């Protein structure tokens, strides 16, 4: 009996340590980011840093507006490409897919999630870039290419979360709709999908989070010029790309400015997670 109690207590502590480890990691990352990044933001001037359109580290000019805009454009593009395909695929898989095909589709979607991002980047560079170049001219790298690639990359997140949201809707909703004379399509699109709305939105928000934080794939297809994009074919540099490109060489204020870029990115992710939490709360 006593032996069991000792074990019980021991395991409790073990679990507590495990739980604390991840919280500690988050706290440490926050501390590091803000301690290193905020002084740089104030040294440069928050206005100049966030709204400056010129990034010229050799002369200590650090304006990250082109990168913020770049991240937003590319992410928005990924949503336009990825969300319709993802949500419709999820609807198909949950409601219309024949079991035989489902056995192939489900693992395929899971595999899509497991492909390393550098492989996506390479795929984009050798497959997407030439297509865009032949269609529209220019170098083929830019917002459009990055958006399409990211749109593909966020598919698995959107599909799997939307699918489980659709499956979680009580079957009686569907049966009720069909019982009232609705066709299958009507029952699915006007009863099931609205009922699974918050789950689907949660999937989209997580997809956005993945898109804005993606680095290695984007760096290979976005062109990475630190100027304000002027068209959908313009090359862009995202915030993540900015950090990766220059971190290896940066010293002093340049390095801190890159960490400060990380702070801005972190705040974006924070906002996205907050949205996610709000959606979840509404659902519950």
């Amino acid at each position, binding site marked *: 009996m006593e032996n069991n109690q000792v074990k019980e207590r021991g395991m409790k502590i073990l679990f507590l340590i495990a739980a604390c480890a991840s919280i500690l990691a988050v706290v440490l990352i926050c501390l590091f980011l803000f301690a290193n990044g905020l002084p740089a933001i104030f040294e440069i001037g928050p206005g100049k840093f966030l709204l400056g359109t010129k990034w010229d580290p*050799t002369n200590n000019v650090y304006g990250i507006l082109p990168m913020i805009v770049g991240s937003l454009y590319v992410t928005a593009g990924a949503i336009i490409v990825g969300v319709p395909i993802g949500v419709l695929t999820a609807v198909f898989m949950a409601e219309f897919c024949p079991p035989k095909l489902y056995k192939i589709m489900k693992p395929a979607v899971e595999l899509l999630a497991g492909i390393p991002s550098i492989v996506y980047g390479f795929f984009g560079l050798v497959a997407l*870039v030439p297509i865009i170049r032949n269609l529209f*001219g220019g170098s083929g*790298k830019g917002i459009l290419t990055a958006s399409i690639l990211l749109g593909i990359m966020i598919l698995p997140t959107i599909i799997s979360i939307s699918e489980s949201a659709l499956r979680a809707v009580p079957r009686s909703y569907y049966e009720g709709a069909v019982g009232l004379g609705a066709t299958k399509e009507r029952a699915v699109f006007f009863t099931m999908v609205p009922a699974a709305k918050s789950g689907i939105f949660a999937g989209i928000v997580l997809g956005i989070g993945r898109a804005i934080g993606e680095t290695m794939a984007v*760096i290979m297809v976005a062109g990475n*010029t630190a*100027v304000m994009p002027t068209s959908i074919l313009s090359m862009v*540099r995202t915030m993540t790309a900015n950090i990766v490109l*220059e971190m290896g060489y940066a010293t002093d204020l340049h390095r801190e400015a890159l960490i400060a870029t990380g702070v801005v990115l972190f705040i974006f992710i924070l906002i996205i997670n907050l949205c996610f939490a709000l959606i979840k709360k509404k659902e519950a």
Partner: protein
Amino acid sequence: MTYVNGGIMKQLRIFAILLLVTVLVTGCGYSGDMIDVVSREDGSGTRGAFSEIFKITQKQDDGTVLDSTYDNAEVTNSTAVVMLTVSEDKNAIGYISMGSLNDSVKAVDINGVAPTAENVKNGTYEVSRPFLIAVRDRENAVVEDFISYILSSDGQQVVEALGYVSSEDGSEARYTGYVKSGRITVAGSSSVTPVMEALKEAYIKRNPGVEIEIQQSDSTTGLTTVAEGISDIGMSSRELKTSETDKGIIPITIAYDGLAIIVNPENPVDNLTKEQVYDIFTGKITGWNEISTDTTE
């Protein structure tokens, strides 16, 4: 069912039209032979050397450095991506280390001089940079012996076999030394690392008891670790700054690396002048048609 889908279909149709309009509007801006300039990231040793040779970066009187690299130049962070981009895009131009050249891209002549190891060595091909190693003191027997190997004719042969140019500091004499055991750390430039790896392999064959650890980072980090005594030999793909030599580290040139200006194999241009390269990389020349007429006269 028809009227249910009607709403969706209508929305889809509007979406499709919008998409088409966007595509058409953006597609119109396309001009056939705009030069796609491919550059490297700020801080890269290759970009630093390239910009300095072609005077794309210039020190101003007030101490700031003016970098006039074309704003719309693509920025990549590796030689491999530069090569892949240029090999696939017939309008692209980029620059890489001569040691990385292969058949997928075409290296153009500069001022009529072909980018070959010989031309770098005899000084006619001006687009080159030194590969340096730096040491703090020469007391360590293994460090001393390894350096004597690098500069011996055996070591310089390894350098040349990789497509780089041997150093004028190298001697004609063969390597005769031998060290029984020891351990040294070499750190620094990622451009120099392939040469160092090959030199290490060859050296260890002759001195099996020696361990050499190579840490790949960048020139600045490598030189700093040597100055601080953390590593024994630093690798640099640029000349040392006075602030670095003041710390008592001694540079030794182990090889020269030519920079090749590369274009797509289908590109008819074979020769560029230094001024043309400058104009392309600063955005003064933006179309290939401005070049081909110049070179064919």
